[in-house]
């Protein structure tokens, strides 16, 4: 039973029985409702990217809970490198294709996709398969290679980073979805949802100059938060990241982790990463710093997690 259906029946039942709203409130806070509540985090394993996305969104009550009709939507994958999908340097194009379609089906007025790439942007867009995936799904692939596309934004909540130039597609967006690929990272140790924010800014040098881990947490304090973080762990680069050298760096996990809670999604992703390679959460400094900023929790025990195997 979906949450909305449950509430509807609950309201009807409550009204029918006594027209007593106190009774309804009691019902809402009762245990039975807590069980039916949408999960805080969904993890899926064992399917193709599009199928796993379907399952995850279904568990979360449908894309309609996050994307409303007429909204301008931005999807931000990781397209950092001139690498083919098999090498797992970038977000899976099949996932992006399915997600763009979902947003359009949900009534988004336009769906824009971009990344501030590390390698030559055209090569990245092409080799990753993301540009063609977006095109096929009916989205707009926007460039992000020139300072011209970025505008100054204040980050009053930041510690080291007090402002940044952010891509204008995001500034104009009504909602955005953060779609990182899970991988090893030489500098930040782990590249996932929080680290993926580095692709929305123009000047990354200041990040490296002023405590990389702190700046990653700082940029995540930007007031316009992603409505969802969808971690692609279909293929995972467990070494030589973030660029990778060969297929030996890649493990096929056929997994996906989805949550609006960015710290939780990264913590969970780190757990999955540890299934292949040992990595302490302390080494991934930005996760704890994100929790300090109250961007989310590393305590997964406190959350409702739905685990789905296909």
């Amino acid at each position, binding site marked *: 039973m979906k949450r909305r259906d449950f509430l509807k029946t609950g309201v009807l039942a409550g009204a029918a029985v006594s027209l007593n709203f106190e009774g309804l409130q009691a019902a809402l806070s009762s245990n039975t409702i807590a069980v039916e509540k949408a999960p805080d985090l969904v*993890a899926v*394993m064992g399917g193709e990217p599009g199928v796993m996305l379907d399952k995850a969104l279904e568990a979360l009550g449908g894309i309609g809970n996050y994307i409303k009709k007429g909204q301008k939507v931005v999807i931000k994958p990781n397209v950092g490198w*001139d690498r083919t999908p098999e090498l797992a340097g970038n977000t899976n194009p099949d996932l992006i294709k399915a997600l763009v379609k979902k947003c359009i089906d949900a009534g988004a007025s*336009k769906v824009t996709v971009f990344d501030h790439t*590390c*390698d*030559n942007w*055209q*090569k990245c867009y092409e080799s990753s398969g993301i540009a063609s995936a977006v095109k096929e799904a009916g989205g*707009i*692939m*926007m*460039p992000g*290679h*020139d300072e*011209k*596309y970025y505008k100054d934004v204040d980050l009053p909540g930041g510690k080291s980073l007090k402002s940044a130039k952010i891509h204008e597609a995001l500034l104009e967006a009504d909602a955005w979805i953060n779609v990182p690929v899970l991988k090893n*990272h*030489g*500098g*930040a*140790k782990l590249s996932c949802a929080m680290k993926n924010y580095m692709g929305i800014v123009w000047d*990354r*040098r*200041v990040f*490296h*100059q*002023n*405590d*990389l*881990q*702190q700046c990653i947490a700082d940029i995540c304090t930007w007031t316009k938060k992603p409505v969802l973080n969808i971690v692609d762990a279909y293929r995972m680069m*467990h070494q*030589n990241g*973030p*660029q990778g*050298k*060969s*297929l*030996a*760096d*890649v*493990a*096929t*996990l056929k*997994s996906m982790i989805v949550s609006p809670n960015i710290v939780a999604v990264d*913590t*969970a992703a780190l*757990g*999955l*990463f*540890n*299934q*292949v390679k040992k990595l*302490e959460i302390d*080494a991934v*400094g930005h996760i704890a710093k994100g929790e300090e900023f109250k961007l989310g929790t590393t305590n*997964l025990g406190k959350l409702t*997690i739905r*685990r789905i195997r296909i």
Partner: protein
Amino acid sequence: MMRGKLLKWSRVLLAALFFLPILLLFVDFVDLIPDKLSRLLHLQLVSALLAGMFGIVVLQLVLALVFGRMYCSVLCPAGVLQDILNRLYCIGKKKKKGSRRFSYHKPMNRLRYGLLIATAGFAVFGFTGLLMLLDPYSNFGRIAANLFRPVVMWGNNIAADALMKMDNYSLYHVTVTTVTTSGLIAGGLALLLFAVMVALRGRLFCNTLCPVGSFLGLISRYSLFRVSFKESDCIQCRKCEFSCKAEAIDAKKMTVDTSRCVACFNCLGTCSKDALTFSRKPSRKSIRSATGQAMPVDAFAVNNPNGRRHFLATTAAIAGSVPVASVLAESIGVGKSKEEIKKWPPVTPPGSLSVERFKDKCTACHICVVQCPSHVLRPAGMEHGFGYLLRPQMAYIDSYCNYECTVCSEVCPTGAIKPLTKEEKKTTQIGIARFMIDLCIVKTEKTDCGACSEHCPTQAVHMVPYEGTLTIPNVIEDLCVGCGGCESICPVRPVRAIIVESNKTHAFIELPDEEEVKEVRVDDFGF
């Protein structure tokens, strides 16, 4: 006149067919033009000579021997550019001040052959500076790359901004990054020189400074087909002389200096009496049999026998001074390098084999600069001495050499950058990353960074454990190709903590063994 006009417009059409693709190659910043089109550049005489494409050289010689200096009017982009400048100059002017403003001048043989011999002589002795400065194609390249291209890019940006408002990203914003001060000055001066010379005396450059023009002139002197007078039809209106931008027609004497004629056929188009023809030179027999009244067709050579003599005399004079000059040039070089002994030599592109070889073979046409998808090649100023002036170097300021890319080696017309396969490219080490730990942020600030390792395609720069959870870069020299990924992204200023030191002679590394792909099975989420 009709036939003359037909010849002239055929020449114009042919010129456009060669000029436009070459121009597009230089101004195309979105890589629309296929790289293969750059083979057109192999037709350039100096490029073909340097690349050792003697088939093309012979072809050009034969062409010149048959048709005269058609090369200068059709194949040479600098020649065509001068014709365009001439057209622009004529706009709004009456014919007398515009298209018919020229008049016959004597050839400046000492100057042109002197320069030709000096250029060739220096080049043979390994000093290609003069060739680089005078080669017409390279000058055109520098003008197109450093002046025309930015203009096209700015135009694009205006259009892209307009389209962006409509959510159309078929055009995108671009930033001009490859134009250096030296490149801008070189392009600007060349364009100014062309413009001034064209305005004053038409194709003066081609008949004084241009080594290709002078060289072809030596051959076209004997060309089989040539422009000549049918004296009986000439009414001495001198329109042909006034319209000759090479200033090679002396209408009074009814001579055409074929060593300077660039076979543009403007004269044929203006002659209303068809008194000029482009036809086979009559054999000596017929000249001999000609009556005293009729001047021989190659009357110019008869009246001006000095050309060849000048050439020989100047050759001898310059040949004598070459050893001195080359010693002089060398000593200048040594003096400079001693001054800057601490400075590393420039990093040269993969395929150039060594700094010395590159210096000798590159004429700084900047086609590699404009074609490099990463915009990493930038023309040098005087920082590496005059010997390297305007030659492109790998500038890892904000970009680096793509691991898989071989574009520069494919487009280089002189062979200064030899064609490489992807495999060869990946094993060519143009330099080695030098890591200066005392400057590194991980050490000085005690924070994570790793930007250099992130960008290293071979993981020659990799992170090793440092204090606590920190990791710090380490370089495996045998894996480093010198692509500059690390240097371009290192956030330390003013001096970066990791800099590529060039290999004066490129080295070759072995590709690391392919790591075995291990099957990883994960059944649990781990949280």
